[in-house]
Structure formats: structure tokens, C-alpha cells
């Protein structure tokens, strides 16, 4: 599943569950409870709260482990030994990218920096969705690793506001099929 769609689904489910909880309480809010009913609902609320804590805690631990055990950001100090390296410099309002063609199927190391202000180096797939990104910051070189699965013409779009020419600050990256494919 495309990551964006997975995120969208999780968000809708999460927001939906929150909304259901609120709707339930709002429906019940108009029904006054006597002392006995109040005590019972208080007891139930205790149990639900404990279960909610357990669910959230398990989600917290499992989610943190799943998303951090392979740390998504490559080490920034030392060589990354990628087969392909692309040097990227952002400046108001253009990208300098050498080379501008890479092969699909093997990892590419992007070394991204800026000559002037902060820029956002985002790579859009031919279907219009972001596949990866990092920031281009003056004085720093951010190393980004990515393996392109599909050949095609990818678009680099600045994603950090950098002044009047921010929107048109784009370029293209060609991803060609690996030899033999």
C-alpha cells in the first residue's frame, strides 16, 4: 500500500473512533442518571479507562519499535557506500543536481545543501506523490538514501518556503532502468 494512503486510512479510523466516542456520550448526555446509575457508570468508566490505557500503551511501544528499529535517516557522518551519488545544491530559485540521471533498483545517495536559504528537497514520483525528501540547509549537507523502484521522470520540488520563486523551484530527475532489465 502506498504510504500516503496507509496514513490517510489510519487517520480516518483514529478520528472516526474519537468521533464515535463523542457521539455516544452526546447521545447519553441527555439521559439523567440517579445515584446508583452514576456509581455504576463511574465503575465502568474506570475499567474503560484502564483498557484505553493498555491499548494506547501497546500501540505506543509496538509502533515506536516498528518505526524506529530500522532508523529511517541514514548516518550523516562517514561514507554511506552507495553505488550512485547525486550532489544537490538549492539556491533561490533553482536546483543544481549532478548527475541528473540515476538507475532504478540500486540505492542512490543524495548529498543536499543550499547556497543561500533553507529549501526543501522533495522528490515526486511520476504519479504525483512524494517518495522522499530532506531539507537543504546552508552550512550543512544532508545525506538522503533512496532506491527508485520504477524508471520514469521524477520531479524535484522545493518544499520549504524560500521566497517569491518558491513554487516554480523545480527540476527533473531521470530514473532509467538498470542494464539488463
Amino acid at each position, binding site marked *: 500500500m502506498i504510504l500516503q494512503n496507509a496514513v490517510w486510512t489510519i487517520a480516518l479510523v483514529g478520528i472516526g473512533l474519537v468521533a464515535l466516542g463523542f457521539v455516544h456520550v452526546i447521545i447519553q448526555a441527555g439521559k439523567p442518571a440517579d445515584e446508583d446509575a452514576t456509581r455504576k457508570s463511574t465503575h465502568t468508566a474506570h475499567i474503560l479507562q484502564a483498557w484505553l490505557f493498555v491499548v494506547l500503551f501497546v500501540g505506543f511501544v509496538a509502533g*515506536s519499535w516498528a518505526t524506529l528499529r530500522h532508523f*529511517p535517516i541514514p548516518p550523516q557522518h562517514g561514507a554511506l557506500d552507495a553505488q550512485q551519488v547525486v550532489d544537490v545544491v538549492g539556491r533561490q530559485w533553482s536546483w543544481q543536481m549532478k548527475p541528473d540521471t540515476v538507475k532504478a533498483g540500486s540505492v542512490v545517495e543524495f548529498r543536499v545543501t543550499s547556497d543561500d536559504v533553507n529549501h526543501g528537497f522533495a522528490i515526486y514520483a511520476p504519479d504525483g506523490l512524494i517518495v522522499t525528501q530532506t531539507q537543504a540547509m546552508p552550512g550543512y549537507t544532508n545525506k538522503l538514501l533512496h532506491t527508485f523502484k520504477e524508471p520514469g521522470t521524477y520531479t524535484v520540488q522545493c518544499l520549504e518556503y524560500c521566497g517569491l520563486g518558491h513554487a516554480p523551484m523545480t527540476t527533473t530527475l531521470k530514473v532509467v532502468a538498470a542494464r539488463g532489465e
Partner: protein
Amino acid sequence: MASLTMYPEDERLSGGNRAAFNLYIVTAVTLFVLMMLVGLTMRMTQARWLDVPPDLFYELLSMHGAGMVGTMSLATTAVMWFFLRKYVHLHLWAFLANYVLFLLGALCIIVSIFVYGYGALWTFLYPLPVHGVGMWTADSSALFMLGYLLIGVGSLLFYLDAAAAIIKVHGNLGRALGLQWLFGGKIDPDHPKAVVASTMVIIANSLGILAGAVVLVMSLVNIFYPQVVLNALVAKNLIYWFGHMYINATIYMGVIAIYELLPRYTGKPYPISRPFLWSWAVSTVFVVVVFPHHLLMDFAQPRWLAIMGQIVSWGAGFPVFLVTAYGALTNIYRSNIRWTMPSRLMILSMFGWAAGIVPAILDGTIRINSVMHNTQWVPGHFHFYILLGVLAMALSLMFHEIGSRAHAAPDSRADRLGFPVYLIGGLIFVFGFLDGGRVSVPRRMAEHLQAWTFSDRIGSIGAILVVLAMLYFAIRITVGLLKPPSPSWAPEPVPGPIPEPVPSPLVSPAPSPGVVGVGTTNAAG
């Protein structure tokens, strides 16, 4: 414990207090309408329904960001002042000084943007303020930053006065937070939640404002002495520490209205508890250290900071879901609550906060941030809990207060129409942004591709509804507040039965295992 009396005598506004409160609220609701119109203009431009040139668009974006954050702070400061003054002695001069400095600061910001063309956004991300490339000058940036400094000094003055007043009553800030009861001891049932929340805001937001002051002064030095070059990463950390803290403080000031008002409308006690104290103690730390989630795509950032950004962002969900939203729902459950504007807005605010955290937590995940950072997912989640959460909190107090002046519960036919327009419009508006994030539409961009305009148009329709509702709210609140104070302070009876205090899940004698925090909302992006 918060009063169950609808309009207690010690909340009555008179003389200078009334004038000051009215100044704050009328200014805030007027600015909200204006800033929303600015926001609508931008959404319609992105939708290609309006043709606004990019330079003006980025000026409007700078105005909207700074204006909304500042106005939200102004409104929620009034909320904090309104309730805190019942428990400690606040000086009116400090409250008014904050207002005057806010206006002076706002004037600097408006002039820098609309006279001198400043367009480096509310984040003034170094070194963009000195790289206007013909659109703005470094001098205009300096004026903008001066405006921030004035507003920050105003906030600090108010906090210092509040801190002194709290210390005078409670001995020190730790005791005001209730730290002495975290691990045992009998909690004073009359220890005000408003004092706990205010103390947290004073501690955390003062630190944030000081971080902001440091980076503002550094940036000003760079403007006037360009040979003094700053470290861009350090500057960005300081900016987001300040920015994240300043806007998040509005939630913690605004939620005081819920603690104080909700039990009056449900007729059920909403007592202080150990989990509540834990939640605020933990949140005091969380909110100060969560800001690195704004820099997840800055790979030069030390790895431990990125991990902390994600972990704390996720952990922030615990206090919001388990204590604040859950506690409010428990209080409302089978209470026979009377649905008038304040109670509607209160439950909306709890929903907006809790639901808005879901997409925020997702964005605070490094892996997800790599495809969502700086897309419209970000304004999607923060508008969710600011528009439907914090603003609703502040509006609930405003409607509650005009109810006291009208001698009638604020529940006119127009109110009953305005509320769903605001709710539905708000939901359409935020889901327009979130859908834009799903399809990778960038945020902060004047020119959108045709393929991106679907979510822009959905969002614009929602924004129109929100503006219409807010315009009505602003007029209703302004007219209501300008009415003369009622000659007699006749509290209305609470509608539902007032049962004997029954221990709620939030007053358990021992803390539920792991129940922590009141919530540190994420604003990753």
C-alpha cells in the same frame, strides 16, 4: 474545586476589569474574522478561484500566520486571566500592558508586511529574512521582529505578574503545580485546576519566549551586522522551540475554560485528582522538549533529538486521550447537560483537540514525515485542533459571559444555526487540507497545479462557512459584551440534578497505572 454556580460572584467583571476583558475579546474576535478572510483569500487563490499575485500571497501568508498565532494567544490569555484572578491577585496593569504591547507589536508587523512587503512568514526562518531578493528588505524584517519582541515582552510581563501572584499564595511554582501530591498525600480538593494549568503555561511558555527572544536578537544582529553569521540549524531549533511553545500555550490557557465551565453546565463536580496532576506535570516537560519533531527532515540534527521528537509526540496522546478528553466525556455522560452555545463549544473543543492529535501524531513519525512534511497535512492537523479545539474553548467563555449580561442562556435560533455551520465548515476545511496532504500538495505555495485544486476547492467551501459563522459569532459576542452589566448578579440554576459527589475515574485514590499528562499537542511539520 471549580464552582457549580453558573455565574459566581467572584467572577463578576466590573470597572477596569470589565473594560480590559472587553478590549481583549472584541479585539480578538475582530482579528479572527479578518485573519480568516485572509486565509480564505489564500485558499481561493490556490483553488484558482481568485487571482492573487505571489508577492501579495506570501504577504498574506505572513500576516495570517503571525496574526492567528498572536490573536489566539490574546484570546486565551484573556481566558487564563478571567479565571486565575479568582484565586490569586493579578494586577490589572500587567494585563493591560500585555494588551498595549500586543497592539504595538501588531502595528509593527502590519506595517512591515503591507507597507514594506515583508514576506518571510511568521517563522522568520534564518536566513530568509535577509534574502528577500527584491520582495522585501532586511529593514522590513527587522521591523517585523521588533513587533514579535514587543508582543513577547507583553506576554512575559503578564506571566511574571501571574507567577508572582501564584507564588504569593502557594509558596512556589512546584506546589502550585501540585507536585507535592504526585506520589501520595491528601490532595487539597480546593486546589484550583486553573492555577495548575496557569503555572504550567507560565513555566513552559516563558522558556519558549526566552528562546524566541534569543533567536530574534541574534537575527537582528545579523540584519544590522551581516558579517555576524548564524548557525542555521541552531537558529531553526530556537525558532521552533519558541513557535511551537507559543501556539501550544494557547491550548493550555484555553482549556482552563473547560475545567471551570463544564461542571456548571453538566451539574456534576469535576474535581482535581492525582492523574490530573501527573498529566500537567508531565506535560510541562513534554511541551518543552517536543519541538524537534519540526526538524525531522533536517538530517544534520543529532539523532537523539529526532528520536525524542517522535517519542514525545506519540507520548503526548496519552494525557489528551486518557485524562483531558476522557475526563470531560465522563463529566458529560448522563449529566442531563443543557445544550447551549457554551456547552456545545466546550464539547466541540474537546473533540477538535483529541481528533486533531491523530493526524498530528502520524506526522510526528519520522518515516511518515518523510512524505508528509511541508505538505498540506500539516495545516490540516494544526487547524483541526486550533480551529475546532482552541478557538472553541475561547468562544465558550465568550458566549458564557454574554449569557450573564443578557440574563438568558446563549441559545438563540441564530446560535443554533451558527454552531453547525462552524462545525461542518470547520470539518470540511480541515479535511480539505488533510486530503491535500494525502496527494502530496505542498503547503505555503502561492501557485498550485491544476491537479491539486480539488482539495483546495473543498477547503475553500469549508472556509467560507467558517468565516460566515465566525462573522456571526464576532457580532453576537461584541454586541453581547457591550451591553451594560446586569444590575443584579442572578445566577441561573443548573439544569441537571446535582448528585452527591461521586468519585469519578479522575479522582481515584491512587493513580491509575501509567495515566499521565494532559496533553502536548503535536504540530510537526
